[in-house]
């Protein structure tokens, strides 16, 4: 397929075409974090398309990485965390794949990843970070190197630049040129957008340039290769101020991911052929319920129980 130029006037496309910008074996930066604003429509499309050997990088994540591992789409995990916190605990597909040696574990640290992205942004061959020495995380990364500061003699770890092949980001609004509006917490989304070779964006809604500009441009158009309108594109993670995370659905994934059979059934039920089917399977009422969080603190609390 033809890769869209970053200066194209119109970067709108369909989800299959956008996910086509991710190749087998790519280093992939997934936006959002934990249970917040992860680009799940793109994750699902990568699974539909049977992507393999992805090398995922980033900070603390959850169902996005666990589902990709469950679909055998990932070869290397270089995240600072993959799991479901106190909520549901360990990530079942990740834990199983790690125990079988089915994924390479290159666990990293939030600040290390950030500094590696910055090295790429700054155009530097390395950046020094403190810490890591004494941690076994060092032994998972032969690409790191201990150096001595030429001015102070301090021991530091030099880490190489990280320029992911592709960043996947879910935002709130975008115009046809690829100007994207996102709201805090941005996690690493801006850094991913600036450091990556390709940037693929889904948004809750496409809008006019005036509307995106008024809301505030978080990621400027010249960094972006493709934009796709994907309502509920972060589901079952949250996408405020529109909807909270779908705790019940995440619980359903946790239960399904206890075994290979459950994972197969989950994907059969929810994935094929497209996002319309996915939303139908979740159900209009269930989705609408997630939008009621702002009725009152009590309501919000109820949705989290």
């Amino acid at each position, binding site marked *: 397929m033809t890769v869209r130029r970053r200066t194209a006037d119109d970067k709108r496309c369909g989800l299959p075409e956008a996910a086509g910008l991710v190749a087998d074996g790519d280093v992939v930066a997934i936006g959002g974090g*934990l249970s917040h604003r992860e680009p799940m429509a793109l994750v699902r499309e990568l699974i539909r398309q049977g992507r393999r050997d992805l090398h995922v990088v980033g900070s*603390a994540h959850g169902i996005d990485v666990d589902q990709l591992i469950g679909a055998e789409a990932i070869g290397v995990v270089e995240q*600072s965390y993959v799991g479901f916190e106190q*909520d549901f605990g360990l990530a079942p597909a990740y834990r199983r794949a*790690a125990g079988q040696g089915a994924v390479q*574990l290159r666990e990293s640290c939030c600040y290390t990843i950030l500094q590696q992205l910055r090295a790429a942004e700054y155009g530097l061959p390395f950046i020094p970070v403190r810490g890591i020495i004494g941690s076994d*995380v060092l032994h998972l990364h032969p690409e790191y190197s201990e150096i001595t500061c030429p001015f102070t003699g301090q021991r530091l770890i030099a880490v190489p630049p990280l320029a992911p092949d592709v960043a996947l980001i879910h935002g709130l609004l975008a115009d046809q040129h690829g100007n994207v509006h996102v709201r805090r917490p941005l996690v690493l989304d801006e850094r991913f957008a600036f450091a990556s070779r390709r940037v693929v964006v889904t948004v809750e809604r496409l809008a006019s340039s005036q509307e995106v500009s008024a809301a505030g441009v978080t990621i400027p158009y010249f960094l972006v290769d493709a934009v796709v309108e994907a309502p509920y594109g972060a589901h079952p993670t949250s996408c405020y101020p529109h909807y*909270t995370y779908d705790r019940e659905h995440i619980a359903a994934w946790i239960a399904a991911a206890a075994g290979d059979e459950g994972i197969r059934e989950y994907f059969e039920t929810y994935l094929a052929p497209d996002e319309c089917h996915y939303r139908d399977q979740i159900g209009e009422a269930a989705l609408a319920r997630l939008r009621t969080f702002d009725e009152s603190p009590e309501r919000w*609390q109820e949705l989290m129980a």
Partner: protein
Amino acid sequence: MNPRFTLDEWMCVELARTIGDGEIVFHGFGSPCAQVAMHVAKRTHAPHMVLIEGATYALDPVPAFLPPTSNDWSLLTGAPHVLRFEELFDLGARGDLDRMFLSGGQIDPYGNTNVSMIGPRDRPKVKLGGGGGGCNLSATVGALTIWTTRHGSGRTLVQRCDFITDMGHRTPAGSRTELGFPGGGPEAMITDLGAFDFPEGRARLTRLYPDVDVEAVRGATGFELEVADRVQTMTPPTEAELRTVREVDPTGVRRSEFGSADLARAYTLHGEVAVA
């Protein structure tokens, strides 16, 4: 207010008491006891503390409840500002975070913690979630408060971690001084059995809950237990501290860190064991 209270409430209060007024404090994600403790400290003895939420990086929010996940907009409620990811970690790197909280599936006598994996590195028996920002922050943050709710399991406090994620006072690679870490390392450790300090960079038992004795701690600890000359009984929560724990965490998210037997451990405000 029910004056009978349980271990989870007491532990959160003990953790809160490790925070000084005016400190800049951060808890990691997935750390409900530390999160409750920070909000309790802010609303009781440490009103000038700068509270930075664990995954939203919201400043001093006043949430109506704590959600079971750390990156949620409910944790932005009442916050005057939300820091960027970059700003939080830069604060930590340059030594301007005074304290953070760390836990682990394994913790050794020097306060090294393992949140990465149990068993061999190529095929771990249990792949834990991972360290988040710990293996950088533990080098540079002013002081660390360590906690675990699983000391009683006998599997958590170990002579040697299978994998060191976050660095304590000494690792096989050397001491903090030798490694050039500007941060002070572990200062306190609060567990479901008692409280520890680190006078020589090694954990030392100083205080106990009233339903635990030194022998029970020794039996649950995988390394040679160092004990202070006078081990004291912990001071129970004040009414105000207890009320604040319940206000901060009305749904009891903190309880997800505990096993059912420990959740049944109950006390009175006089520090006596309460009979069920």
